[in-house]
């Protein structure tokens, strides 16, 4: 009888597993993702001119930062206001390493990510005791401190070696691009591929043990502890991961057109980053892409149309208010819902053409 029971349980296990696989990777979904990737990698560079491709490169790089911050807020429930400063740290580490050594570009990115990850983890230490507003405040102060350090060190500076200084500090520094991607289009593709890798890392975390542990922590610290989750480890790991991503993005940014300079990372931009991440949507990792589009593409578009980009502050304010009050899932969650609603509304207007008739009240 025992054997019969086990066989039954086996069957249930496999049917449940197959149901999971269906929801995670249905063929249609994979096809759509594949088509989108092909378009982004191959189609976009054909359509866009140099300027807009630069913008899209920037969107790609910033989507890595928003991805990390989105994970931290949406999955773990911790707010960090120092991600923009950590982006600068990543750029700085990559540049200094380039001045001092001849490490190949991918390794440079990795080291920039790891060093930034360690610094971010240290900043995350208060998160073990603080939450919400106070954690946000501490991280904002850390961002300010990083800003001061970089200003004093005349970041990024062009002197030789690890700590070399030139008198011509303050101007932009450009990290040499990898040999395989020196041109604008090639570097755009390079960034997209790094971005895809980061999204895979994020997906792997979210779908795995870490994601489940984070879901526990987000709901309640004590629940997670009672389930055997080492909450200290997983909280710091989340901070480390988000910072790692910011660091990698910093390395990419240092090699993007125009390079980086010390005035590019004002502390208040970390707050702007939080706003776009909330608007993009924190409960889906794809919200990070929407957030990056809001952050980099929208200002460029407004500029192109001759509208003052100052308007964005108001627009983002209204957007965040909207998210906090009515659409906690952000644009990535809300737009498909609204589209479906619109489709139903159109269906009601023209009942003959669709099945809108079934929606009519039954008296």
């Amino acid at each position, binding site marked *: 009888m025992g054997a019969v029971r086990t066989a039954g349980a086996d069957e249930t*296990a496999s049917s*449940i597993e197959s149901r999971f696989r269906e929801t995670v990777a249905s063929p249609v979904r994979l096809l759509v993702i594949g088509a989108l990737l092909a378009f982004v990698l191959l189609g976009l560079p054909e359509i866009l001119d140099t300027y807009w491709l630069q913008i899209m490169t920037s969107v790609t790089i910033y989507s890595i930062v928003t991805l990390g911050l989105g994970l931290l807020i949406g999955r773990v429930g911790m707010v960090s206001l120092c991600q923009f400063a950590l982006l600068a740290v990543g750029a700085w580490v990559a540049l200094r390493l380039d001045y001092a050594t001849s490490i190949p570009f991918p390794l440079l990115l990795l080291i920039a990510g790891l060093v930034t990850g360690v610094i971010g983890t240290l900043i995350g230490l208060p998160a073990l005791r603080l939450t919400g507003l106070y954690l946000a405040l501490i991280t904002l102060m850390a961002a300010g401190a990083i800003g001061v350090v970089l200003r004093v060190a005349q970041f990024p500076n062009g002197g030789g070696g690890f700590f070399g200084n030139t008198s011509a500090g303050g101007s932009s520094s450009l990290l040499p691009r990898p040999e395989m991607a020196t041109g604008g289009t090639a570097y755009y593709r390079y960034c997209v591929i790094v971005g895809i890798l980061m999204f895979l890392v994020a997906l792997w975390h979210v779908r795995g043990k870490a994601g489940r542990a984070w879901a526990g922590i987000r709901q309640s610290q004590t629940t997670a502890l*009672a389930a055997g989750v080492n909450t200290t480890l997983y909280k710091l790991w989340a901070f480390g991961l988000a910072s790692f991503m910011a660091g990698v993005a910093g390395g990419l940014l240092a090699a993007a057109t125009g390079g980086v300079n010390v005035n590019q990372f004002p502390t208040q931009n970390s707050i702007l980053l939080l706003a776009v991440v909330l608007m993009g949507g924190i409960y889906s990792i794809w919200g990070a892409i929407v957030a990056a589009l809001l952050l980099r593409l929208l200002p460029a578009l407004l500029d192109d149309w001759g509208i003052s980009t100052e308007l964005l502050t108001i627009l983002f304010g209204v957007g965040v208010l909207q998210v906090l009050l009515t659409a906690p899932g952000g644009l990535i969650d809300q737009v498909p819902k609204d589209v479906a609603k619109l489709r139903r509304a159109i269906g009601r207007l023209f009942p003959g053409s669709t099945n809108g008739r079934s929606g009519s009240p039954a008296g």
Partner: protein
Amino acid sequence: MIEVDALTVRFGGVLPIDGMTVTFPGGTCGLIGPNGAGKTTFFNVLSGFVRPVSGTVRAFGEDILAMADFRRARWGLRRTFQTEQAIEGLTVFDNVLMVHENTASDRSTRRQDVIEALSFVGLDGVASHRVGVLGARERRLVEVARAVTGNPKVVLLDEPAAGLPDDETEDLGRVISSIPERFGALVILVDHDMSLVSACCQTTAVLDFGKLIAAGPTGEVLRDEHVMRAYLGTEEEL
């Protein structure tokens, strides 16, 4: 067996647990008492969320208070919460899986074990549902499934039947009473529903104002005059 010796907890000037000495012999043990008697505080001491000022707790010969809070779950301590705490953002399956992967090291039987815990409480049919869409009874059962997966040694159930109608409480009682035999764990059940406690528990301990006032076979304890007085109030007070 859990041996509690002279356990005292202090919150400022209050002693929610005051020199509690009791032994939970095994099987399903009841722990009852009026509101504020210290039952949940006792669970929180066992979980490591509250540090006692003095006293010891030995569970199966091990000094449980010496372990870090999250390691106690790895050792085999499980609990449910008074306000149900199944994790809303995860599926039923992932809720149980999460406890298993953080407490049991055996990967090869992981999925099998999770399914087993789910069918034990009768939730294998909704394994892929998100907890957020479930009703109160099912959420409670998710918590129970979480509490029995991954080789539990001690299972603490804090008012698992709170808010459930009588027939559902009865079903839950049957699930609870079969935990010791099925999973080899000692269960401590806190609940105000005396019919549930007498149906499930061979022995029962009674707390009142942090002090143990009775302990022994459930039938005798529930008839004890001290216990009656603690629940109904004394004549002097009236």
